[in-house]
């Protein structure tokens, strides 16, 4: 079977490339491939990634601003994040990512709000520094409980020669609060990815040196920080509860439901636990170099990977923690086994194609496989070579690998490989649903979740069952129609 699947996948690539003019064809060919768990030098080793998107296609990629404001900085709840430039970016990225947090919005926390300098032509022509300075001052008057402000640059800022660093520096001194200027203009780099990196660098430069909260911090031997969990639908909450139960103390959560203090005290952790490698490996490496804190990647999607990760983490802390961890694993495994017993019979053998960003194109494979579902295609919006290399460990069968896949390609791949479920983003969702295919958004958990940890796996399983086994998919064909329609 696997050989047939592999052949089909290779054929799909050949077919999809036919449509392109030569230059684009040559380019795209390098981003597509097939790999198998036992394969040598397959697509996971060779796929070209983190390169310029081919112009003129419907790429699903975002920009550096999205990576910084939307992903890394935006969820830090007690800071105010200004979308600096024209009105659009802040509006389109407002309250759409489901970075859950606890707080009184508009008073001591601000995540779902849109603060923008709303540039006009005048600001472009004469520069926006004065307006920015004034904006910072107005924010401090109206939102006295903000614990700092970040300035998230939109495209024009870097092009008109504004000096936002200087403005931030002056304001920081005057207000005595963190004021961070982030040059994450959307045109920088090829995707969100550079925005993550730039955002990490600013945390490194502006937050890490701030020792004020670290001074009186009383450490324990079991302090850890969660890095790279954006608390989508409460993911990080469903993760920290496990770490706490195994005897660890989670002193920081980056950056979903994070407060400034949690950013600043993270260097007190004994171990940094890194979930989204892509967006926060930079700062983890920095903390390792600067503060000597080791970091460990983990995967809390699905019981197999969660258990494997918990054991790895426990091993770091020694026998006492390991014993607690085993007890906890036993407790939760009874529940997740019951979940599998309930849902696997309804989902087994169903084929899945993924297309997401960050860590999910590889991390969620295990959760599907735990339910007996077979992932036959996956790809990253903005992954790098190291992401694809890591993917190799997670694939369970011959898998079509597609980097920066555009809408046309994904549609063709789906038509050819005929998966039972497509799991991707909102822009793709309705394309496939119209083709009669169950679909789950895997950025926002389709307004459900959380999906991290054991409790979350139960939700994941229930959601996949809901998607796959809803009666609505059977209505597509009208009773008077004879032929199959749809994909």
């Amino acid at each position, binding site marked *: 079977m696997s050989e047939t699947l592999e052949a089909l996948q290779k054929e799909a690539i050949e077919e999809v490339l036919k*449509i392109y003019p030569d230059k684009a064809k040559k380019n795209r060919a390098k981003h597509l491939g097939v790999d198998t768990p036992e394969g040598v030098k397959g697509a996971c080793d060779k796929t070209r990634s983190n390169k310029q*998107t*081919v112009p*003129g*296609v*419907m790429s699903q*990629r975002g920009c550096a601003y999205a990576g910084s404001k939307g992903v890394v900085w935006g969820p830090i709840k007690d800071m105010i994040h200004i979308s600096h430039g024209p*009105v*659009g970016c802040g*509006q*389109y*990225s407002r*309250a*759409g990512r489901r970075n859950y947090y606890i*707080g*009184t*919005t*508009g*008073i*001591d*926390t601000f995540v*779902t*709000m849109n*603060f923008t300098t709303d*540039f006009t*032509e005048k*600001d472009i022509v004469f520069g926006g520094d004065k307006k920015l300075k004034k904006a910072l001052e*107005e924010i401090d008057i*109206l939102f*006295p*409980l903000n614990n700092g402000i970040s300035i998230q640059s939109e*495209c*024009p800022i870097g*092009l008109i020669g504004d000096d936002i660093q200087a403005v931030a520096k002056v304001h920081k001194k005057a207000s005595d609060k963190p004021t961070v200027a982030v040059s994450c203009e*959307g*045109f920088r*780099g*090829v995707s969100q990815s550079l925005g993550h990196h730039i955002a990490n660098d600013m945390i490194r430069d502006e937050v890490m040196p701030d020792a004020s909260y670290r001074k009186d911090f009383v450490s324990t031997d079991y302090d850890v920080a969660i890095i790279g969990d954006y608390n989508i*639908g*409460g993911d990080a*909450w469903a993760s920290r509860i496990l770490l706490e139960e195994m005897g660890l103390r989670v002193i*920081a959560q980056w950056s979903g439901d994070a*407060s400034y*203090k*949690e950013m600043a005290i993270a260097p007190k952790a004994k171990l940094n636990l890194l979930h989204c490698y892509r967006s926060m490996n930079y700062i983890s490496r920095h903390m390792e170099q600067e503060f000597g804190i080791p970091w460990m990647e983990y995967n809390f999607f699905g019981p197999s990977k969660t258990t494997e990760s918990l054991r790895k983490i426990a091993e770091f802390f020694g026998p006492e923690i390991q014993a607690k961890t085993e007890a906890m694993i036993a407790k939760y495994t009874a529940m997740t086994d*019951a*979940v599998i017993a309930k849902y696997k019979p309804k989902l087994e053998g169903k084929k899945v194609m993924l297309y997401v960003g960050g860590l999910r194109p590889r991390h969620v494979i295990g959760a599907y496989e735990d339910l007996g579902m077979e992932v036959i295609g996956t790809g990253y919006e903005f992954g790098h070579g190291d992401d694809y290399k890591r993917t190799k460990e997670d694939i369970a069968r011959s898998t079509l690998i597609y980097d920066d896949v555009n809408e*046309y390609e994904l549609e063709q791949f789906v038509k050819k490989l005929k998966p039972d479920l497509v799991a991707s983003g*909102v*822009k793709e969702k*309705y394309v496939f649903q*119209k*083709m009669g295919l169950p679909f789950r958004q895997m950025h926002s958990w389709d307004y*459900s979740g*959380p999906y991290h940890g054991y*409790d979350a796996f*139960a*939700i994941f399983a229930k959601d996949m069952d809901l998607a796959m086994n809803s009666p609505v998919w059977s209505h*597509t064909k009208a009773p008077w129609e004879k032929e199959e329609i*749809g994909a």
Partner: protein
Amino acid sequence: MQDVENIVNGQKLFLKEEYQTSLAAKKEFESAMGAVNPAKVEEIAQWTKSWDYREKNLAREAITINPAKACQPLGAIMAGLGFENTMPYVHGSHGCVAYFRSYFTRHFKEPTPCVSDSMSESAAVFGGLANMKDGLRNCNAMYKPDHIAVSTTCMAEVIGDDLGAFIIGAREEAEGELDNLPITYAHTPSFVGSHITGYDNMMKSILEQLSIGKEASVKDEERINIIPGFEPYLGSLAEIKEIGKMFSDKIVMLGDHEEQWNTGAGGYSLYAGGTTLEDAKTAINAKATISLQKYSTIQTAKTIKNKWKQIYETCNPIGLSGTDEFVMMLSKLTGKDVPEALKTQRAQLVDAMQDSYPYMHGKKFAIYGDPDFLLGLVSFIVEMGGIPTHVLCNNAPRKGWEEDMQAIISKSDWKDDCNIWMGKDLWHLRSLLFTEPTDFLIGNVYGKELYRDTGIPLIRIGFPIFDRHHLHRYSISGYKGALNLLTWIVNGVLDQLDEETKDIAKTDYFFDCVR
């Protein structure tokens, strides 16, 4: 832990005791004031409701907070998708396009086709010509459009890319592939105006550029164009077309995006519906053009009036009198009497208004949104005897709109109690609602945070609406559309009445079964 027989998602999962304990323990590591000193949060929260805060808030000059507007290219994409087999193409960063597509898709629950030419640092330095050369060719090869509508992001505008020259350059090097493909273009800088400005600029460009070679002096005396404007209600487009058909077969909608965002299950096709390119090319030869959104078509109007020398009229067929005006306009332009069917619809609407008026009469409304939408909605509220206490618009042009709105408000018995807030945002509105509360709030999804904070019920009418389904399928225009507005508003009032009277053995004597 989850009960496998009753698996709950985050809504209820985090209410379980173990999670509440974990969340409480987390506060030790937090700096947000709610964790440090909750009383301080309460104190500041109370202060934000005060007149003192309102004054400081209204004095803001530099920071905009929660605006109800978006940027130009969003509108340009809607304009482009109103034409058949047309691919909107954004010259700029693909990050913008990802945002535009998500934004529309979350509103319509439909795919939104649009490409970008992925400009980045090298383009910022050298200009985006190379991107456009490859981009137009790739777009044409993959998506096989009959027309490409090019707009720009602020990046391309800041570096000053010359679209006209770039398109010529791209055609020259395309080895003939683009020879017969109409490519229209508009500059749509995000730092000027809002999404309705982008709609206007793209619409003007499409109409002007597609009609090149046609003579404005050739007039089809029966042909009437209707431009809907930035219309998020697909049902409105359908209803306007239906009303048009009652008068004449030669009434043509220019920019008809109804079907594009309303395709059925059973297969996906990239393009659906839209004004035919033939109709777009001959728009110049019509006798008259009616714009249904005066302030979304300011530049387009100049083309039609000054270059095409057509009769140019604006109507706003939202509410009763707006629809009356529209119907009479069609009657005048076609020389035909108002059809019986419309007379019946009107009578039915008025009958319904007379059935429901007690629940809207004297009720105070705060309402925000796009300028033309507001003119229509406020007009309807006034017709029902409601009080438009706060009318807030971030993106109305300085010229004309306030006077138009004032003229509508002047018809209200409570005209002195009404306020027009130009250029204000929803954080301003928060202060207004705390200091001068209304009974109801009408607006888009972003009003839900105001509802949460002030307790004033939100009736969702506007764009975007992400958190309720299918409202965009309905009409808010025409007599039938006004009936929808009436239904939503009156039932919103009645829902609130039930909410306020449902306390058992306290207020539920007023929890009536008949209202």
